[in-house]
């Protein structure tokens, strides 16, 4: 284990057994993430992205190899690494404020007032002061995801794990939230691992992209994005990376590679 690695996966593999059959979902995954990095995992549906994220977060344990977080082997979930779920994972029976406070309630050292203050701070950070007393059902999808982000931020975790956080939003809302995420990260310097199947999103947000292949899930290619931040979605450098990835998935029109090969 190297000293400077913040998250490290060592030849990690994962098998599931369902109805007597064993399926190999992940195979031989190794990578390290440095402190301060924003890493995206890009791959098709079912290639094992969520499984990988669950292993990093300690929600599941690897069949082979091991996962280290800040030098310690990951055994179970911890408040130091907070997961953002695809369907936001808000408690529908709590208001925005109460949802954000939820993350702070297990910290017994905080007084009620301190808790409230810290929750309000992170609600402000995502721009939802106005809606702090509304319930999740009264918010749009984009606003709900902001609440989830605020809850994660309030805990001040060392690592944030995001599982397709913007996939359920429409393009425009997605763009807004991506910008906002970058904006917040500039201030808070969070370490983030983001899982996505959206090529633009991966390029727009991350320092490094792990491109995955399926059956079994493995890392096919690693791509460093060397663009200044903030990036321009319509800039030609952006398009360079876009083409690189499209090519790697055979989506550019450079031959008859298309046809029905889904």
């Amino acid at each position: 284990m190297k000293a400077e690695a913040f998250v490290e996966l060592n030849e990690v593999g994962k098998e599931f057994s369902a109805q007597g059959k064993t399926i190999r979902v992940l195979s031989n995954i190794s990578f390290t993430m440095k402190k301060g990095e924003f890493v995206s995992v890009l791959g098709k549906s079912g290639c094992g992205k969520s499984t990988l994220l669950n292993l990093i977060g300690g929600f599941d344990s690897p069949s082979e190899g091991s996962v280290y977080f800040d030098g310690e082997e990951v055994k179970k979930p911890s408040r130091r690494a907070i997961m953002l779920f695809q369907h936001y994972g808000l408690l529908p029976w709590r208001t925005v404020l109460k949802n954000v406070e939820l993350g702070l309630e297990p910290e017994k050292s905080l007084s009620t007032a301190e808790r409230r203050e810290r929750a309000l701070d992170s609600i402000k950070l995502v721009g939802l002061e106005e809606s702090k007393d509304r319930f999740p059902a009264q918010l749009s999808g984009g606003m709900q995801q902001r609440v989830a982000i605020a809850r994660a931020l309030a805990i001040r975790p060392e690592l944030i794990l995001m599982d397709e956080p913007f996939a359920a939003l429409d393009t425009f809302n997605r763009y807004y939230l991506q910008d906002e995420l970058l904006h917040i990260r500039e201030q808070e310097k969070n370490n983030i691992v983001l899982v996505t199947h959206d090529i633009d999103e991966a390029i727009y947000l991350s320092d490094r992209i792990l491109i995955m292949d399926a059956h079994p899930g493995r890392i096919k290619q690693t791509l460093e994005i060397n663009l200044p931040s903030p990036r321009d979605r319509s800039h030609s450098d952006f398009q360079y990376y876009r083409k690189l990835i499209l090519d790697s998935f055979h989506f550019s029109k450079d031959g008859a590679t298309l046809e029905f090969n889904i």
Partner: protein
Amino acid sequence: MKTVKHFTIAFILVLVVWQLVIWIGGYPEALLPPPLAVGKGIVALVSDGTLFTHVQISMFRFLSGYLTAVVVAVVLGLILGRSPKVWAIVDPVIQVLRPVAPVAWAPFIVLWFGIGNMPAIVIIFIAAFFPVLLSTVSAVKKIDPTYLKIAENLEMKQPAQLFKIIFPAAFPYIANGLHIAVGTAWIFLVAGEMIGAQSGLGYLIIDSRNALDLDLVLAGIIFIGVLGLLLDKAIGLFERWVGRQWGVQG
């Protein structure tokens, strides 16, 4: 307003059909009393105040049995829903006990709980207990695993998890169980008030039936029906009220 209109139409239609059945079938009043006789019976019951006493005592028995059942069944259900191994043992026992009519237990109910209020309360308890328990257990099992993962992620400890996550997450299904249980438990009021009770709507029906006063039997049926409907609406309102507290659209 619209509901009132529909109610009135339905009411008139029922009266007409009922009277027609009597005219066409030529039934004697002792066997099938006409609406008018039942109406008179109702007026008599209301004006001498007996009705009020019957309703009061029946509601008392019902609420005692029902609320105790709800509390016990929900608490047990929350625990059993989170302990699959214990549930695996308890489940078959419950599956076998559930289909047995509360009346069949009558001899043992008398043995343990005596007569009067208790048998009615116990029978209503039994009738409400199983649906609430089963719906609570299945509600707990059906909780979105994301919620449990969040609790784990936040390192939430056990009693907090139960009260802050599991109970509210399961509540909508539990509420559904409560709703169903009101209906089924109320049906057993009559059965419950057959064992040594000397008052209540069930007793009114049994006693009038004993005295061959079928007009009062029908009056009793109507009151049981209307009160059952009101109880159902009341719990519906309660559900929606909780829903509103929790920001879920009614």
